[in-house]
């Protein structure tokens, strides 16, 4: 499968017909989708019509855009007018978005072909897609295992080589963790760098949209397209963002911290080995890598309670709009209140109900100060510690996920075990920092033998271009990542 930048360059040069690109992507989807169940909906006619329109644009001599002809799949919580927007939930079954999100507008304006809606954990709450009301997706490396989540459909679609690019959304790790588990690149921008207009809200102080790509350089290309100010999201920052695609991919003299606080007993030894090797690659290329003693990010290991209290509280408020009145199906009760209770009780899945309960509890009178306010105070401490570290270092490196892709059903009976999947990704989300997961090899032994491992790089706020340039440099130093059989490559 060609990279997004190769497709766009060739389409712009008139060497590649976007109709052929779309046809090939749809045929890969037909062949591979039964194995991974990455998609919830595919509008073939729409894709082909847009590819034909694009071909005419090229024929007329108009510039078809930076993503000309690139097939891009969108997580099914990002609105595209007229398309499904289930957020993986029964409560939005049959709902079609009445308007288009900022990110989809930007992609279409640059000539991308929006190909299908990808699966996710219900309302993006989960780390495996097993909370989707429409069935779990599967990992393209081993279909008895999860692809991660919540953007698991997007990561499985890219990891299976169906599309070179998909968009995911992340609140606590939902772009980077599935990217790591599927052997592809995933990037979460600085909070406020990408407009959330048209994204189904989960935790509004944390949610960001970002790219999942087969090639690290494409993450920079897509970030450049979707990032930027948008008055329709009041939390979207003003001004220009430096280009990530044009940033120098050079790690010479780059100061990288490897904090001991990110490593505990839960982190798999073989995952750590791959990450250590990755640090050697960066060092070889001129980076200054330093292990930072325990205590500098002392509060980062508390990110799980902080993240789950904050995000669930925000979710409890955001999801109050789903009451059967304005969207989707309604389950009638005897009174209006009974109808609310029946609709929400029966159409939200168990994990969403659990988080609404947790968040409502944490915000309720008598408990607010001990739980919600306390979590926000510790969140401040986490952010301060990162700020202090970034006065000495340019980047922080760690594993993305404590472990590789786990088996389907392995963690579904224990909500807290599932929450621990976010252990290493939640800190950057709480502090609003940009972070990438880039593939750094396969686990050689142990329970995740033969499965991909992700290297996580975190930058200071606003340093998205530097984080992405380093991911690009790392991939060019190390070589193209190992690919699974389904992708069409050979696993090393």
């Amino acid at each position, binding site marked *: 499968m060609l990279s997004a930048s190769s497709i766009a360059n060739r389409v712009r040069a008139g060497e590649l017909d976007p109709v052929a690109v779309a046809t090939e992507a749809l045929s890969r989807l037909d062949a591979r989708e039964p194995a991974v169940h990455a998609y919830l909906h595919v509008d073939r006619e729409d894709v082909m019509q847009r590819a034909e329109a694009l071909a005419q644009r090229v024929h007329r001599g108009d510039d078809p855009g930076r993503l000309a002809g690139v097939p891009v799949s969108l997580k099914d919580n990002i609105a595209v007018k007229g398309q499904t927007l289930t957020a993986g939930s029964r409560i939005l079954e049959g709902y079609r978005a009445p308007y288009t999100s900022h990110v989809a507008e930007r992609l279409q304006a640059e000539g991308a072909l929006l190909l299908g809606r990808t699966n996710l954990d219900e309302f993006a709450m989960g780390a495996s897609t097993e909370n989707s009301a429409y069935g779990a997706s599967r990992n393209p490396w081993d279909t008895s295992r999860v692809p991660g989540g919540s953007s698991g459909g997007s990561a499985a679609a890219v990891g299976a080589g169906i599309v070179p690019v998909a968009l995911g959304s992340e609140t606590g790790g939902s772009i980077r963790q599935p990217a790591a588990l599927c052997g592809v690149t995933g990037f979460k921008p600085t909070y*406020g760098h990408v407009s959330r207009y048209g994204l189904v809200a989960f935790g509004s102080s944390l949610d960001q949209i970002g790219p999942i790509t087969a090639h690290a350089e494409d993450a920079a290309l897509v970030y450049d397209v979707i990032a930027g100010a948008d008055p*329709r999201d009041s939390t979207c920052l003003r001004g220009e963002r430096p280009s990530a695609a044009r940033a120098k991919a050079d790690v010479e003299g780059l100061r990288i911290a490897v904090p001991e606080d990110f490593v505990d007993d839960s982190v798999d030894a073989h995952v750590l080995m791959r990450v250590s090797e990755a640090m050697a690659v960066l060092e070889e290329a001129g980076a200054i890598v330093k292990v930072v003693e325990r205590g500098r990010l002392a509060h980062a290991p508390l990110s799980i309670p902080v993240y789950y209290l904050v995000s669930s509280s925000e979710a409890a408020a955001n999801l109050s709009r789903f009451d059967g009145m304005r969207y989707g199906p309604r389950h009638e009760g005897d009174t209006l*209140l009974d109808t609310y209770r029946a609709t929400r009780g029966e159409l939200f899945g168990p994990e969403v109900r659990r988080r609404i309960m947790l968040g409502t509890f944490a915000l309720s009178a008598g408990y607010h100060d001990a739980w919600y306010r306390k979590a*926000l105070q510790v969140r401040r401490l986490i952010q301060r510690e990162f700020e202090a570290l970034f006065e000495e270092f340019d980047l922080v490196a760690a594993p993305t996920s404590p472990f590789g892709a786990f088996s389907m059903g392995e963690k579904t009976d224990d909500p807290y075990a599932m929450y621990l999947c976010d252990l290493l990704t939640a800190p950057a989300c709480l502090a609003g920092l940009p972070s990438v997961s880039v593939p750094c090899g396969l686990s050689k032994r142990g329970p995740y033998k033969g499965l991909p491992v992700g290297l996580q790089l975190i930058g200071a706020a606003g340093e998205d271009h530097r984080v992405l340039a380093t991911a690009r440099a790392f991939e060019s130093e190390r070589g193209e990542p190992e690919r699974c059989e389904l992708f069409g490559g050979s696993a090393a």
Partner: protein
Amino acid sequence: MIDPDVVRRVAGLARLGLSPEESETTITQLQGILEHFEVLGEVETEGVEPLAHAVDEPGTPGADEILVFPEPQDTLLSLTEHAREGFLVVQRILGDSDAEG
């Protein structure tokens, strides 16, 4: 910490209908999750300002003008099964003794 009364009260606030079995499970699960979270209570946070939003910089303000939603009313009403004659049909709320203020 979590008992049947707390679950009933929180489910009421959240407008979530829970079956008796689910209420039982919720007690165990929430209790278990919160026990893991109790570690936060040990952190010294005296005088620490809560951080509700990671970014202090101002966002992008919208222009101070009236925007008309581009889609006609019919399009929005077509998204629900409960539209009639240009209105959204909901249950009556007056005289409903169970409704909370």
